[in-house]
């Protein structure tokens, strides 16, 4: 057992981090996703990691860095694909919101029993003026065409779990980035003649942020190990738990960072809101916190007929 980054993974992480720092400073990130982002990342090998012999743990390391840099776009759906691709999970009949419609070639529709591909050219959507996340533009599409089947139940499961792990890894990177933003600001911002990070009320917010990111990262790496080696754990349990904690870590750390930044945290200029908004967006794909908690509970023993006969069971509130 070696449950830490290997030397190769450390090099992979440092390499992609340096690349993203150079190409995707916040000024570029704020310009949003377009085909050049897809081409850049495809050129760096991000979407073809599996084809090039890397494991899911390696992919998780890379996606954590994409999240740390908040590189915009449907990067998870584009994994393993040759063209920019967005997707949606189990869309209900009727109108759906499709992300990045102006910059994709394909839309994948993931349902329990299969995966379908729809060409973006076959979709007619109305662009929405005010998306929750300014870097995740959405189009309202009135009913999806059937599309072309590209996989059955096994493929759907594979996409659901691998998409969950990559999204969770991305969210962990975001949660970690928010910790760094808040900690750096708490060291520098002075009130009452001292750095605000010296106050326990602020210090404890920061400590909790660090714990959430670290705990979620360990869970995500466990889930990635299980995808690489199914013998070491249960896919449903570990992937659901990992994405649950990653969703929560990114959302809670986005909120906590907003709080540490005070009034500045409520400005468009400070980057924190972009992280928080993305975290909310990513809670809606590959399982929300509630859905995933139910999924983990589903791996536990079911409720049993009560062994205890208690005279006032029926009086329980």
């Amino acid at each position: 057992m070696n449950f830490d980054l290997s030397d190769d993974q450390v090099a992979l992480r440092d390499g992609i981090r340096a690349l993203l720092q150079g190409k995707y400073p916040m000024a570029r990130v704020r310009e949003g996703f377009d085909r050049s982002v897809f081409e850049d990342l495809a050129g760096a090998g991000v979407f073809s990691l599996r084809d090039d012999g890397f494991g899911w743990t390696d992919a998780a390391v890379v996606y954590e860095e994409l999240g740390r840099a908040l590189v915009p776009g449907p990067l998870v759906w584009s994994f393993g694909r040759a063209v920019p691709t967005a997707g949606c999970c189990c869309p209900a009949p009727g109108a759906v919101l499709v992300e990045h419609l102006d910059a994709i070639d394909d839309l994948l529709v993931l349902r329990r029993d299969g995966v379908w591909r729809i060409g973006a050219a076959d979709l007619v959507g109305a662009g929405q003026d005010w998306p929750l996340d300014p870097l995740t533009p959405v189009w309202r599409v009135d009913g999806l065409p059937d599309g072309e089947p590209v996989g059955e139940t096994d493929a759907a499961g594979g996409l659901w779990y691998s998409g969950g792990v990559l999204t969770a890894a991305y969210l962990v990177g975001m949660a970690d980035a928010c910790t760094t933003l808040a900690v750096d600001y708490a060291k520098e911002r002075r009130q009452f003649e001292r750095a605000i990070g010296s106050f326990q009320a602020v210090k404890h917010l920061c400590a909790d942020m660090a714990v959430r990111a670290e705990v979620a990262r360990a869970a995500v790496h466990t889930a990635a190990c299980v995808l690489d080696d199914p013998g070491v754990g249960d896919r449903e349990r570990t992937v659901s738990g990992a994405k649950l904690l990653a969703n929560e870590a990114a959302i809670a750390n986005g909120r906590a960072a907003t709080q540490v930044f005070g009034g500045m945290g409520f400005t468009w200029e400070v980057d924190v809101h972009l992280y928080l908004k993305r975290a909310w967006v990513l809670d809606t794909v590959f399982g929300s916190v509630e859905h995933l908690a139910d999924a983990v509970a589903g791996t536990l023993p079911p409720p049993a007929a009560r062994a205890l006969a208690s005279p006032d069971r029926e009086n329980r509130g």
Partner: protein
Amino acid sequence: MDLRYSDEDEAFRAELRAWLAAELAVLAPQPVRDDWDARRRWDTDWQRRLFDAGYAGLSWPKEYGGQDASPSRQLVFLEETTRARAPYVGVNFVGLLHAGPTIVAEGTDEQKAAHLPKILRGEEVWCQGFSEPEAGSDLASLRTRAVRDGDHYVVTGQKIWCSFGQVGDFGELLVRTDPDAPKHQGITWLILPMDLGGIEVRPLKTVLGSSEFVELFLDEVRVPVECRVGEENDGWRVTNVTLSFERGTAFVSELVDATRLVEDLAPYVSDPAQRRELGHVAAELDAVWALTKRNVTQASRGVSGRGAFMIKLAYSEARQKLGELSLRALGRDALVVDGVGEFVEERLRTLALTIAAGTSQIQRNILGERVLGLPKESSR
């Protein structure tokens, strides 16, 4: 990165599993909670069996009866013994997990030879003497005085929260040897033979009604100078050897146990909102367990990861949520402590988890200052 144990570790696991099955089949029932003589016999007898089978002191040096085993081997041992519901360390807690490791790291050859093999064989029981009524979170402000008189320290003061003081043969004792030095620099770590004159032991009753803690009243107790571990006035550093252990892998057994408890509780949880909460807690405990594995991997490479500062904080809060949920799931059945499995007792016991061995608030200070580099509060 992988989670697969080596073939050697798996072989060790299989052997241990078979040994546990045989031993546990003939194990006498656990004695009642406050019969301390019986508890001492039961816990030390189990320790002796572990020793005879080669399972004692896995992390300790071979020359003192240990096994020098790898951290992953220790993890397998704790996983298997906890899953099999084998006895945990019991009254051997302080010797095996606190005082022993401190003596391994800081003791003289004589101290090692005198104590380590006996601790491993279950022949010597230790208790703790760190906290004082006026020195809790601010442990370094402790005031129990030790005045040098020839070959002895004359010790006077009061200790509280002394784990297993009812049955201890020796205590790990922190005393102030230089009252004029800054508070961290005037402390010394002593081995306290509990049969010395001038020691009074008074049981302390916990919220569970149990008595594993005592108060110690020390009145001019003459402790031989050769009982000192480390240098005079260097006791704070020596103590941190022990405290850093508490923050590291000390929760492996607790975590495995908590995961088992989730499984045991699940059949009682039928309300959908409570099932959801249970799933949530299970995910948190799984993740802290994963972080523990990370920490163990890093420790085996000689790296002290930041996870060591986080495991206790995350674990204690997750387990308290589990305890809280178990009470709500049981409803009025929870009005009887020993009525429904161990769940109600569990809720009471886990109240201590965010207090003992550094409160969660102190853990956050340490994490904020030592790991994140935030400035100290100006008054400290």
